[in-house]
């Protein structure tokens, strides 16, 4: 099998990996780079569990060939260093139950602008499936992060 060298920035540091050009970004992240925070739920771009940021845009890393990120800036959940306020909010508001969708959810939510409406949040997260929460608690976490009022029926606890 042909291995190419692919160079990109991962969570702020330059990485130079050898991988088959068609290798999926998710596999390179998890297996080559040892960053297992990016999760695989379907492998076909449908669940969003594998969401990472490429040059600031959320993408499903299970359908991106690694060759495509050459020269790009890739950010995974580990890149937030556990310091992003959304991370604590997802736990406190129970936006994470089993947690398998959570890294992807958080990465997708990062693309939201400063004063999102509930519909903006819904749209931003439409590609991310959660089977545990029914999404309401995720909205609560995201709206709190953005300092937006929480709609009555999204149930403040």
């Amino acid at each position, binding site marked *: *099998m042909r291995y190419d060298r692919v160079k990109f920035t991962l969570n702020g540091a330059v990485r130079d990996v050898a991988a088959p050009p068609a290798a999926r970004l998710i596999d390179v992240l*998890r297996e080559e780079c040892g*960053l*297992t*925070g*990016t*999760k*695989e*739920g*379907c*492998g*076909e771009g*449908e*669940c969003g*569990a594998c969401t990472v940021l490429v040059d600031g845009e959320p993408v499903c890393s299970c359908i991106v060939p690694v060759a495509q990120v050459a020269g790009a800036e890739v950010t*995974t*959940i*580990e890149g*937030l260093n*556990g310091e992003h306020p*959304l*991370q*604590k909010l*997802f*736990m*406190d*508001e*129970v936006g*994470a*139950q*089993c*947690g*398998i*969708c*959570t*890294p992807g959810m*958080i990465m997708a939510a990062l693309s939201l602008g400063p004063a999102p409406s509930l519909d903006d*949040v*819904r*749209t931003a*997260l*439409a*590609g*991310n*499936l*959660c*089977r*545990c*929460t*029914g*999404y*309401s*608690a995720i909205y609560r976490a995201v709206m709190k992060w953005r300092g937006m009022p929480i*709609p*009555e*029926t*999204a*149930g403040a*606890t």
Partner: protein
Amino acid sequence: MAAVGKSVARKDGIGKATGGAKYADDLTFPGMLFGRTIRSTIPRGRVRSVKLDFDTAGFTIVDHRDVPAKNAVDLMSQDQPFLVETEVRHMAEPILLLAHEDKEKLSAARVEIEYDEEAPLFDPEQSTQVFKAIDIVKGDVAAALAKADVIVEGTYRTGHQEHIYIEPNGVIAVPEDGGIAIYGSVQCPFYVIKALRCMLGSAHPNVRVIQTETGGGFGGKEEYPSIIAGHAVLLALKSGRPVKIIYDRVEDMVATTKRHPAIVRHRTGLTRDGKLVAMDVDVLLDGGAYVTLSPTVLSRGCIHAAGPYSCDDTRIQGRAVFTNTPPNGAFRGFGAPQTEFAVEVHMDRIAEQLGIDPVELRRINALRPGDRTATGQTLRDDCSAHMVLEEAVKRTDFTRKRREYRGTNRTIGLSLFYHGAGFTGAGERNLKSKARLELTLTGVRIATGSTEIGQGTRTMHAQIVTDALAIPYESVEVAQPDTSRVADSGPTVASRTCMVVGKILEECALEMKEKLGGLTPAEYYARSGGLTVERMYEPPDWIQWDDNTYLGDAYATYGWGCDVVELEVDPDTYEVRPLRITAVQEFGRPIHPALARGQIEGGTAQGMGYALLERVVMRDGAMANSTLTNYTIPTTLDMPEVDVVMLENPYPGGPFGAKGLGELPMDGPAPAVVNALRHMGLDVREIPATPELIAACGTIA
């Protein structure tokens, strides 16, 4: 400071939000191989030959002859093999196992299997092979029907449902000193132990199961992981190396269990003014190709089949039957969502025929303390059917909206439901589950086999122990379930983890408190060293149950719910848009309100998917739409606001008054949706109510 009743910081820590939490696929072990399962491609027949069409160098290959003791999964019956010997009973049945250190080589390996095919049986109504039959008789239903003013009949159908935990199944078997360790995404570590003991026999006594962080279960990781663990263990034994088996989404959907499809028939007698006088119910469940848990799913389904109503003369008959489809199994609700869908849709049809308001019909018949259920159980004060009904009707202004929406493309409907907590009848007594508390230098450690699968086990158990022991919440730790180190608290199923295991923990804590004699854990430790308290569950002594007649106290207590769904239907495409859901539920007392709310919101979403979206298409005995592209679960755009109302009516036998909660929210949404559709003139009697199905059920009135 009291912890129970407050949304305290969760014991999960921050790992789930930082990517630090380790799920099965996140673990690697030195020298680890990857495992793959070669499966049948016919629904029924016999294996004639197996040909390995690849260079086998570096491969570990396992078939049924490698099973050390018994090739049978030890569950309720031992009919299901770990690996096919010759007889194939369903599509995607495991036949051969391969392992290799290189994933590419592993997936490229080709195996040719030739079969002698036989005609498969797919229609449960044609099946004569009955896994379990139940007949619950109270009074004389035939005589009561004969005297009834009105008789209403109907047949209701529910489809398969796939769990779609976002983390697919995965297990790793790791040979270790003198034994083997299994790490996996499992709900019930001790079920896996039981299955492995049967498979391995006395030659391999030292097996332990460690639950890794688990990305959702919903019943789907109750029994099936025992099979995957068996496979990983067989490969690990043969290769002498750790073996990891992670299913991809398609394999998980095609091969693992689903919710049982059901056909439920009702024949109901009433007085002219709407009092139920006779309920004759027949329940048919499609069990699939092996028994798995079908008998208990049928049992719970039948016990809930008459709904939360009082009726002196009832008869509920049920059968779970064989078909040549992958075995169906545990799924949140465990038979009750199917039968409660049927009875609740039937109630609205009765209301329509009698010209009675559906709320009024429920007011007349809903169970009250002192009433007897279909199994003859006399309900106690913790029965809340009327309380949840009145609250939901009032909160949603149901009657006014019902009137105003008539003739528009907007509509509203409700369902009243209940769910028994814990194992059925004598189940908890027979189970003898245990919990353990261990003193640490700074506090206590909870050591049980109850798994955290997202629902909040760790946190809620720690809260109970905190308050019973009157120590700081921070000083309570929760051990990771490892069967070699924790007490067997029974499976994490049946809405029992809070009510039953939580109760044992409360008692352990009270006993420990007495033994500490006023000393802090640190003081006690310094003076006398360690201290462990282990106790067994004692169900309430008043529980009487007869497993032959199915009469008696089916459950120690029930949770109660009333869901109201408002929705819009596109008059041209019959696309349904849910606008608002109100979920009023009473489950004793919430230990952690935010986690409890999460159970209701999440269960309600699963129920909405069951009602409208989640259609499993079976073709030639296999799921044909086995991807998330064409099997759709609710997304952010499908789920409306859920207004959650948690009412309290404590159960004296639960910890701090708590009942079970996990399954209750699953029972209500589907009938509420379909009853809303009925109010528009759409005579739907089946779910999922896809646009095609609705279009065939009438035009919007």
